[in-house]
C-alpha cells in the first residue's frame, strides 16, 4: 500500500468537499475491492475518504411498495433484516449469497454498486427490480446506472447515498457462483410486477443488464417451458478461465429457468 491521507467525514457534504480538495481522492465504503487493490499497489489514491461515519447513508426503510436501503448498509444487515425478509425477500436472499460471511460483514451495497464489478450480485437486483440509485445530486434509474466494465453513470465525486427498490408481486434470484471467488459467473433475478416481468442479469456481460429477449418471452408466457426455445446470444459476453461466453449464455438460461421455478413455486 502506498501512503495516503485518511479522512472520516460525518456528512455527505463534507465528504464531497474533501474529495474536491484532494489531488486524487477515493471514497472508501466497505473496502472489499478497494483495500485489496491498494494492498496490491494497483490503486494509489492521495486521499482516502472513509464513508463509515456518515449517518445519513445508513439505515433500512421498508414501506409496502418500496424498500430503501442506505448506501452504507452492509450485506449482512440486508441479508438478516426481518423487514426486508418479509417485504422483499429476494433482496435479503441475494445479499446472503454475496462472497462469504467476512465479506458480508464488511461490504456495502453502495460500494458494490459504485464499483460495478461485472460479477457482483447487487447489480442484478438493481436492474431486475428497476431500482433507483440516489446520489447527493440526483436520482439515477437502475437501467441507466451500469454502463460498462467497472463503469457507472456516477460522475467524479458523486456518492451513492441510498437505493430505492420497488416491491414486486414476486421475485426470485439464482446464482451460479464461481467456485473460487464465489462471485456470480452468472446471476439472474426475475421480478413480476403485476404481470410485467423484468429480468436482471449479472456476471454474463461487462456489466449487469436487462435480458430483454427473456423478458419478451416471459411477458407472453410466464412458464419455464417457454424458455426452452429461447436463444441467449453470447455476443459481448465475458469469457475467462472459469466460463466461456457460450457457457455463460447457457447458464443464463438455466439460472433463469430455475429462478422462474422458484418464483412460481
Amino acid at each position, binding site marked *: *500500500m502506498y*501512503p495516503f491521507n485518511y479522512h472520516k467525514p460525518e456528512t455527505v457534504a463534507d465528504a464531497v468537499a474533501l474529495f474536491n480538495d484532494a489531488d486524487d481522492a477515493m471514497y472508501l465504503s466497505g473496502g472489499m475491492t478497494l483495500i485489496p487493490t491498494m494492498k*496490491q*499497489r494497483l490503486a494509489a489514491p492521495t486521499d482516502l475518504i472513509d464513508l463509515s461515519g456518515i449517518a445519513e447513508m445508513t439505515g433500512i426503510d421498508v414501506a409496502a411498495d418500496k424498500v430503501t436501503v442506505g448506501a452504507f448498509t452492509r450485506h449482512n444487515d440486508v441479508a438478516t433484516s426481518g423487514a426486508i425478509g418479509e417485504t422483499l425477500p429476494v433482496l435479503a436472499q441475494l445479499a446472503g449469497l454475496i462472497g462469504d460471511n467476512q465479506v458480508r460483514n464488511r461490504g456495502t451495497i453502495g460500494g458494490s454498486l459504485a464499483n460495478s464489478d461485472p460479477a457482483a450480485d447487487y447489480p442484478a437486483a438493481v436492474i431486475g427490480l428497476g431500482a433507483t440509485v440516489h446520489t447527493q445530486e440526483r436520482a439515477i434509474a437502475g437501467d441507466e446506472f451500469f454502463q460498462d466494465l467497472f463503469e457507472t453513470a456516477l460522475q467524479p465525486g458523486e456518492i451513492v447515498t441510498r437505493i430505492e427498490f420497488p416491491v414486486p408481486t414476486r421475485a426470485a434470484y439464482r446464482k*451460479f457462483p464461481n*467456485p*473460487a*471467488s464465489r*462471485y456470480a459467473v452468472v446471476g439472474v433475478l426475475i421480478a413480476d410486477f403485476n404481470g410485467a416481468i423484468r429480468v436482471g442479469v449479472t456476471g454474463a456481460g461487462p456489466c449487469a443488464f436487462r435480458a430483454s429477449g427473456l423478458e419478451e418471452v416471459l411477458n407472453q408466457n410466464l412458464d419455464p417451458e417457454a424458455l426452452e426455445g429461447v436463444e441467449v446470444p453470447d455476443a459481448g459476453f465475458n469469457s475467462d*478461465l*472459469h*466460463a*466461456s461466453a457460450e*457457457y455463460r449464455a*447457457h*447458464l443464463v438460461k*438455466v439460472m433463469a429457468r430455475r429462478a422462474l421455478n422458484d418464483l412460481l413455486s
Partner: protein
Amino acid sequence: MSEAIAEDTGIGAPVRRREDARFITGTGRYTDDLNQPGQVYGVFCRSPHARAKINGVDAEEALGIPGVLGVYTGTEMVADGIGDLPCGWLVKDKAGNDMRSAPHPPLAATQVNYVGEPYALVVADSLQAARQGAESVNAEFEELHAVVELGSATVSEQIYEGIDHNLAYEWALGEEDATRMAFARAAHVTTLELTNNRLIPNAMEPRACLGVHDAATGDYTLYTTSQNPHLERLVLSAFVQVAPEHKLRVVAPDVGGGFGSKIFIYAEETAVIWAAAKVGRPIKWVADRSESFLADAHGRDHITRAELALDEQGRFTGLRVKTTANLGAYLSTFGSSVPTYLYGTLLAGQYKTPNIYVEVQGVYTNTAPVDAYRGAGRPEATYVVERIVEQAARELGKDPADLRRMNMIQPEDFPYETPVALTYDTGNYEASLDKALELIDYAGFEGRRAAAAEQNKRRGIGFACYIEACGLAPSKLAIELGAGVGLYESGEIRMNPTGNVSVFTGSHSHGQGHETTFAQVVSDKLGVPYDDVDIVHGDTGRMEFGLGTYGSRSLAVGGSALIAAAEKIIEKGKKIAAHMMQTTPEQVDFDDGTFSLQDSNQSVTIQEVAFAAYVPADYPEDLEPGLTEKAFYDPNNFTYPAGTHIAEVEVDIETGVVELVNFVAVDDFGHIINPLIVHGQVHGGVAQGAGQALMEHGIYDEYGQLQTGSMMDYCLPRADDLPDFQVDTTVTPCTHNPLGVKGCGEAGAIGSPAAIMNAVTHALGTKDIAMPATPEKVWRAVRGE
C-alpha cells in the same frame, strides 16, 4: 503398554493435540512473529517475463529512496562465491548418464526463466521503503520465446545451452521386453491418456525467513519456514556456501503447513541470510500470497499414456506407462526424484501385475519449479493405476471391485517383490476393500443412482485401491539411487534430574501434531506421565541432526528413533537401578516406569533413577552420570500404507457442477498412536485430493504468465464443498519398525483423486475428462463434446 496410561494418553488414545491451544488462540510463534533488534525488511524483484535475458539491473533510483539500505543482485552473489541451488537427487537416465541440471542461481544474474523468479533483493528499514525500492529497480530485459506447454516442450525452442530437447532425463524402470511380450499375448488391452493437473500448494502460512548475522562471532541464524531445518543448514553450508555449517543455526519455529512446499531450499532464504551479513542488520522477508503462487514449488503436472494388458480371465499381465513430467524451469531440491523413484516404483499398486515398464521424460519449461507436494509421485502413480484398472473393468463389463479383488496381492504373498523395485512387507488389501464396500453400501448404489436421476442428476461411483511408500529408506539404497542425503532420523531423550523428560527429534512438525503423538509414544515407552514429556524440534542449535518431515516419515522413522533412544535409557537405567537395589542389571525388569528386582518386592521408579543419575552420591563406579540418550534410526525398508477409497458424485447435467456426495476412506496405517490425529490427516488429505479432482489447477497462458495467481482464480476446496467423510481403518502392523506404524500424512491425497475421477467418468459414461472436473468441462462432456 500400561493400561492405566492407555485409557487417556497412551498409545492408541485419541488425545487432543496439545499444540492446538496456541495455534487457535493466536499465540503460536511463527517466523513472522519473531523480531530482532535493528531488523530491516527485504523485498524481491521478480521477473515479469517467463524467459528473458537480463541485460542490466540499474539500482540507482532504488538506492535514492529514503530508507533503502541496499540492492543485491545475482551478479554480486556470484562475485561473493555463493553457489547455485542444488538438486538433492541425481537421477540417471536410461542410458546411465547423469540428468542434465540447469544452473539454478538463487538470484538470476543473466537470464530469468519463469515469471516470479527473483533477480534482486531490496533491503530497507521499512517494508514500505523496501517495496518502493523494489518497484524502482530498473532491469533491462530482452524477452525470449517462452516454452510453456508441457506436451510440446521437447520439440520447442531450447531453453538452456547443452540441454537438448529441454529434457533433464529420460528415465525408465522395469523390464521393457518382458512387458512387450505380455502385451503381445494379451487377450485385452486398455489404453488411457491422462493428465495430472498442476497444483499450487498454498500452505496457510506463506514462506518467510529472518536472517541474522552476528559480526562479533561470525555466527549466522536463519529463522525460516522449513520442514527440515538440518537439511536447510546442510545445503546452505555445503553447497551454496553461505556460511560454514558450524556457524549457521537454522530454526524452523511454528510452521503453518507445508505439504511438501517447505521441504525445499529456496532462493529467498539463501539471499536473505547472505545479505544480512552484507547489510549488517537482521533481514526479514515474508512472502505475500501472490509471491507464494508464483514462486513456491508447484506440484504434479504430468501427461501420461498408460496401457494395461489382461488375460481372458481379467488378470493383469502387463502395464506400460509413458509419462511426460513437468519439472518447471529448474530442478528444485527433490524435483528430479518425484516423477521417477517416487512414481514409477508405485505402479504395481496393490496388484500382482507381473510385467511393468515405465518411461518418464523429465522436461524443463518456463514455469515455476515443480517438486514434491503431498503424496509426491504416489498420487500420480495411483491415478494411473486406479484409473486404468477401473476403465478396464468397464471395457470388460466386470464389477470394478471384483476385477481388483481378483488381481490383488494376497496376505500370504508377503513379503512381495514388485516388478518395479519395491518389496512390500505386509498388507491385507481385501480387508480394506470389504470394509469400504460395506461403509459405502455398495449394494444400495443403483437405488441411489435412480433417485438422483429423478432429480435430473447423474450419480457415479468410483474406486481407488491405492498403495503408497512412506519413510523413504534405507539410506544406503536411496543414496545408491541418487539421493544426496541419508534418510534416517535422530532422536534424543533427556531424563531431567527432577524426573520429567525433554525429547529432541530431528523430525519437524508443521501441523502434524508431533508434540502430542511423540509425547504419547515416549510417555508410553518410559512409563512417565504424558504431561511430563516435552517434544522439542525444529532447531539445529538444539538437536544434533535430523532429516525433517516429508513422505509421511515422522512416526515411522522419527518415532522409531525415539523408541531406540528410550531403550538405551532403560538399559542404562537398569544399571543404575541395580546399583540402587544392590543387585545386577540382569536381575532388573522394567515396566511402566518402574525398575523392579526380579522375585522381590523391591523397586525404584524411573524418576528416582534419573535423580540418582544426576546426583550420583551412591552410584556405579564404572558408569557415567546423567540419563540422556540419543539414537539414529535407519529403516531397512519403506512402509506401505494402503487402503480403499470410494467416492460417489452427482453431476448436475444442466450446469456441469459435480458434487462430491459421499466419500469413504478405509486405510491401513499399521498401528495407530492417535486416532484423532490420523482421522484429521485423512480428512485433510481427502479434501486436498478433492481439490485436485474438482477444483484446483495451476494454469499458465501461452506467454508463461500465471493465470491462477490468486484465490480469486485458483480454487481451493472449502468445508461446504465437501461431504462428511466416512473414515475407518484396518490394521496390518508394519513388520520392520518397532512401533508397527506406516504413516498417514499423504494417503488421503493419494487415493482420493482417482476415486473421485472414476466416479465422475462413471456418472458421465465417458472414458476420461481431464482433472480438474470443473463445471464447463463437465457440461461439455455431458453434451458429448
